């Protein structure tokens, strides 16, 4: 793989800077970061950034996307190249806005990236996770939004600091005003860290019945997850427990699917589990194609019986 001379980096989330900068050094010899606050600038230097451009604007009613014109101008003036961002919702919007100003190609949710003959190759999931597409970005400026965990974070060295390059903010013609910003009530669950996961789907008839799966979780030390309908349509469980393409993608040692049919959009979230176990009354459910062990039967009979048996 050849390396680029330089790469641009922007992250709306401070904690994502480390991995994106790490990716930057794998792809290019020089890393330039665009930051919106002093703290992010310091972080960027600590992770090894060669230079940091700090946009000076103090009005907090601005949303990140209001900076698109300023960011595009910096890149246009200094030199178009590859721009890396994390694949967050804000960065997706920002990237699309910048791409129009810089005539840049954009690929989102990139799971693999490499450079061949000055073309940027990006791999990303399509058709709900059924396939991967390889997209080539041919434009002079190109933007890749990197999925979580693609690059490992670098070691931080707080002593590495340098002068920031200050840039003045360019106001857009019409802007969006943020009138309130609140931190999302976050749940303490992190399915990504769970050794075992048990997940429930449409086969569970009522909310009260979730406790049947919770019992089994206690017995085998598993976290409880669910398929999309349980979290989004029924709202029986919190979003942080929903497994699938637009939410949690985990790799537990054991994954047990209870009353989950196994649509690709869900399976993308657990297909790399070490062992997959399925309980479903429909013999033809796609979940059995992914399973190491399975039972075709009524979950209301099977679940209490195996919970009892495994307690012993």
């Amino acid at each position, binding site marked *: 793989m050849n390396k680029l001379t330089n790469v641009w980096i922007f992250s709306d989330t401070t904690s994502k800077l480390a991995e994106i900068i790490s990716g930057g050094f794998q792809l290019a010899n020089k890393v330039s970061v665009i930051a919106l606050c002093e703290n992010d600038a310091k972080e960027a230097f600590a992770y090894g950034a060669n230079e940091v451009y700090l946009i000076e604007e103090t009005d907090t009613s601005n949303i990140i996307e209001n900076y698109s014109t300023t960011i595009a101008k910096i890149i246009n003036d200094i030199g178009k190249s590859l721009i890396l961002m994390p694949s967050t919702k804000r960065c997706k919007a920002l990237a699309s806005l910048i791409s129009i100003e810089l005539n840049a190609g954009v690929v989102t949710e990139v799971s693999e990236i490499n450079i061949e003959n000055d073309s940027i190759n990006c791999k990303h999931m399509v*058709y709900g996770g059924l396939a*991967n597409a390889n997209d080539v970005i041919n*434009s002079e400026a190109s933007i890749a939004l990197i999925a979580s965990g693609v690059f490992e974070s670098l070691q931080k060295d707080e002593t590495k600091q340098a002068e920031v390059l200050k840039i003045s903010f360019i106001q857009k013609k019409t802007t969006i005003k943020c009138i309130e910003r609140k931190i*999302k009530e976050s749940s303490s669950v992190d399915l990504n860290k769970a050794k075992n996961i048990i997940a429930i789907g449409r086969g569970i008839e009522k909310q009260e019945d979730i406790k049947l799966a919770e019992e089994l979780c206690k017995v085998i030390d598993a976290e409880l997850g669910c398929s999309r309908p349980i979290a989004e349509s029924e709202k029986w469980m919190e979003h942080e427990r929903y497994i699938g393409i637009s939410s949690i993608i985990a790799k537990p040692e054991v994954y047990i699917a209870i009353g989950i049919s196994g649509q690709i959009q869900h399976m993308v979230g657990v297909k790399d589990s070490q062992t997959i176990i399925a309980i479903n009354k429909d013999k033809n459910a796609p979940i*059995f194609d992914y399973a190491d062990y399975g039972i075709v039967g009524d979950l209301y009979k099977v679940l209490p019986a195996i919970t009892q048996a495994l307690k012993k």
Partner: protein
Amino acid sequence: MKILVGCKLVLEDQDILVQNDGTLDFSKSNIKINPFDLNAIQTAVDIKENNENITITALSIGGEKLKNIKIRKDILSRGVDELVIVSDEKYENILPHQTSEILSHLAKEQNFDLIICGDGSGDLYAQQTGIKLAALLDIPVANAVSKIIKIEESKIIVERTLENEIETLEIPFPAVICVSADINEPTIPGMKAILAAGKKPILEKEIQIQDSFLVETTELKAPKRKERAHIIIEGDEEEQIDEFVKNLRKVI
């Protein structure tokens, strides 16, 4: 007030077959309205129900799929007032930078206040089209919109749910909003709506844009699946459950 809604047609992904070599066979797949766009249409319909003098125009761009009369009626039965179509073979598999360009030409011909798009599409899920459309029209845009709070004469107030934060935004018209899948539960059209759909106007437009090679898809392939043991027991009597438990004990 005039609302435009972006509406993409996608293939039913459950019917896409993966061949032995990892390539995809689309020949058995039916077409459907992009699920995220159903949320966009429903958002427009909800606004119409709660406000006076609102018309909704759906915009759809595509190739052969769009020639299908049934799917056109399906779009119209969801509560939009009219449908504007750009159908051309070469627009069959276009990428967001091209779709947004065509949409921008369509939008410029309409005197709109608000454009509503889905956050992404069920097939490519690039999540760029609505935002690029706004950039081309040089108007404000917000994605991940999860709630419409209020509509006033010159602006809309929405809630936007990000990874760790919720923002309340004031967006001046004209504007684009891209809505998330959890903003509403799209209504399934009733008999009356289906019958009424046949009488609603469909406008076919011809729009030509220059070929663009900013991004090209060079390969499309299903990832290799992990080998699995596939030990499946049929039946839920005591005997079968015991056997299943034996299997579970091997890994738990």
